[in-house]
């Protein structure tokens, strides 16, 4: 996906970043109070907010987030209760809340969550326009995830980069100095690692984040996609079969058992030295840093290889926040979102997230976190490099259903575990996709 910078957006971004930096040293409370007075979003009197968010993976991210929440409360007098749920539980909880018409005032979930119930999301176009105008515009993927037609139904607060995590010693032992950036080279690396103490391994179970990230990369890298631009199912293609054959070879080179891995399995296996290459966010590296593990000096991150399509086909997690229409305090909710994403707040939070989260507004490219440690650098580009759920089609309810049902993950798992031939697995997945996209 191409970055779309204009002279205007860069000027705005620079100005905003400079403004943020100038204020960074001043008292947060003073600034917050001034912001509340000038904010275009005037909360309802007596408002209080309940926020449902995904449970943090990085403690410093949550600490920074809660500081911002406290600052918002002090500045506006609005009490904010934050509910933490595991990543996989946010969607069911929000689905139930929206269905019964009662629950949190703000829901911060994953991928295309707002598109599961677009008519039950408050129009946030004014917030998106305000923030986009002030901070250099939204990255293209954020706009796709946030908008339903011309209306913004969610604000993609950030993205979660998911890249190749590898042990330097493991790939060197396999005869490589870096992770190859082509499909054949990457397969050769994994096959060479199989003979060593630390083979490669990537989740092929029902792992929402990690499994979806790498199997979609594999599918798209071969030029296949579930649907075309008109949401017509085009999965049944030679490219998809080739992708299955490729993943089967990768799976055979992996450590045994990856078909049962969930989102936490690869973290455990990597930190325990069981695998020397996997795909993940920056949480493994951060865990090594915080706990002072030696592994921090022997690991790094790499982009996913580029396939025959000739461009990155990465799939990173989007984190959109939405305001259900049942809320009694839509303006307070809008003020809360706008407050969090002002440079004075967002920069602190981005630093606290130590590159686990990537900005969705172009202005934050200059955040010091992206230059503080070379091992974090590639995560800066996650939001600009990612494809979106439902690619090449729309990012609507059907795309959300297809992800929730792990159609692509199961297609590859069926092939990898020998349950089906690549052609049968593709045909099977096509049928499932047609059921959703009809």
């Amino acid at each position, binding site marked *: 996906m191409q970055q779309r910078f204009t002279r205007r957006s860069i000027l705005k971004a620079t100005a905003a970043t400079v403004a943020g930096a100038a204020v960074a040293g001043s008292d947060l409370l003073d600034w917050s109070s001034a912001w509340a007075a000038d904010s275009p979003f005037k909360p309802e009197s007596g408002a209080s907010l309940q926020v449902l968010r995904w449970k943090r993976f990085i403690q410093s991210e949550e600490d920074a987030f809660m500081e911002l929440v406290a600052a918002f409360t002090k500045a506006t007098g609005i009490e904010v209760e934050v509910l933490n749920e595991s990543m996989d539980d946010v969607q069911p909880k929000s689905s139930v809340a929206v269905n019964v018409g009662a629950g949190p005032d703000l829901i911060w979930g994953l991928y295309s969550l707002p598109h599961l*119930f677009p008519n039950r999301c408050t129009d946030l176009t004014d917030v998106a326009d305000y923030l986009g105008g002030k901070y250099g515009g939204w990255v293209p993927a954020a706009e796709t995830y946030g908008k339903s037609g011309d209306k913004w139904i969610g604000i993609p607060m950030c993205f979660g980069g998911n890249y190749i995590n590898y042990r330097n010693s493991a790939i060197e032992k396999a005869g490589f100095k870096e992770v190859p950036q082509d499909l054949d080279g990457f397969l050769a690396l994994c096959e060479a690692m199989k003979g060593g103490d630390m083979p490669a391994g990537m989740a092929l179970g029902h792992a929402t984040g990690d499994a979806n990230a790498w199997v979609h990369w594999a599918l798209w890298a071969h030029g296949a996609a579930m649907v075309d631009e008109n949401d017509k199912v085009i999965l049944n293609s030679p490219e998809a079969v080739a992708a299955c054959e490729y993943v089967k070879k990768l799976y055979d080179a992996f450590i045994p058992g990856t078909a*049962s891995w969930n989102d936490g399995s690869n973290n455990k296996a990597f930190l325990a030295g069981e695998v020397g290459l996997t795909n993940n966010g920056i949480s493994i590296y951060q865990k090594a840093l915080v706990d002072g593990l030696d592994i921090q000096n022997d690991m790094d991150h790499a982009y996913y290889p580029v396939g025959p399509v000739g461009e990155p086909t990465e799939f990173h997690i989007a984190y959109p926040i939405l305001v259900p229409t049942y809320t009694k305090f839509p303006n307070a909710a809008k003020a809360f979102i706008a407050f969090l994403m002002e440079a004075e707040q967002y920069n602190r939070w981005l630093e606290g997230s130590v590159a686990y989260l990537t900005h969705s507004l172009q202005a934050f490219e200059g955040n010091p976190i992206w230059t503080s440690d070379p091992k974090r650098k590639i995560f800066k580009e996650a939001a600009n490099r990612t494809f979106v759920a439902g690619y090449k089609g729309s990012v609507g309810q059907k795309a959300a259903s297809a992800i929730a049902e792990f159609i692509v993950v199961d297609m590859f798992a069926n092939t990898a575990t020998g349950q089906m031939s690549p052609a049968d697995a593709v045909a099977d997945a096509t049928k499932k996709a*047609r059921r959703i996209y009809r």
Partner: protein
Amino acid sequence: MTDSTLRRSAVAMTGPGLWTRLNNDRNWLGFWFMLPAAAILVLFLTYPLGLGIWLSLTDASIGNPGKFVGILNFYEKECYGPDDCEIYGLFGDHVFWQSVWQTIFYTTVASVAKFAIGLYLALLLNNHLPFKAILRAVILLPFIVPTVLSAIAFWWIYDAQFSIISWSLTKLGLIDQYIDFLGDPWNARWSLIFANVWRGVPFVAITLLAGLQTVPPSLYEAATLDGAGRWQMFRHVTFPLLTPIIAVVMTFSVLFTFTDFQLIWAITRGGPANATHLMATLSYQRAILGGNMGEGAAISTAMIPFLLAAIMVSWFGLQRRKWQQGESDD
């Protein structure tokens, strides 16, 4: 004067009012006492069941009540070309049929195993053993532990890289490579059945033990005097007297197993490649995660005939004796 006397008599002859009579009538009193129970049943059982069946006939999605679509969630044929037709709805959905097959297999194997092990443990605990009270308490432990906690424990036990079973067998030199408990479809199915049996045995064992203790010792004494062996005593005294409680306990056991959700969801989420999806987990995935409430409700509705059949089999199969229904046995 006469008129007023007559009027008073007429008033006296009308007797107690309707409300008083309703309050004093035995049948109406029974009705009043049953009303709260009926209200609870209607509110918490009939209404959700009816709503579920109604949703299965709609195209409802999250936040959208949907419209009536008849049986399209169960059967629908759509053609893309002259020779390119697909059957949609549950009827043409092989993942659904896979989940049906898996649910029946899971329920059958786990229920039989739970019954056999539970009965064995109950017979064992019915004897005079040292530390009998402590043993009975220990047997109950798996049932006391919250399901999700035991599921997480099993998830670790079955972990591809950190399994205590694989580790032990490797250390003993019995295997070279860790067992892929949850990555292989059949291993995953058996692993989940084991976890379910481990969790469900105490319920069966303790309930059957309670049943065993109601068998009068005089019957065993009489059987002994007649020269019956231990097997004959079990076959002709213990088992017939246990059948009512077996019917109840196995009905509940089958229902709990058929509708199992937590163990599957916490350990495999239906994976690998849908190999461990039960109807309950698939329904949840389609309705709540996928947003297709109508389709999810259709899967739940499809569970009803199976559950009714299970109840009928255990009720009419095991409770056919007249004396069990309050009549004399002839």
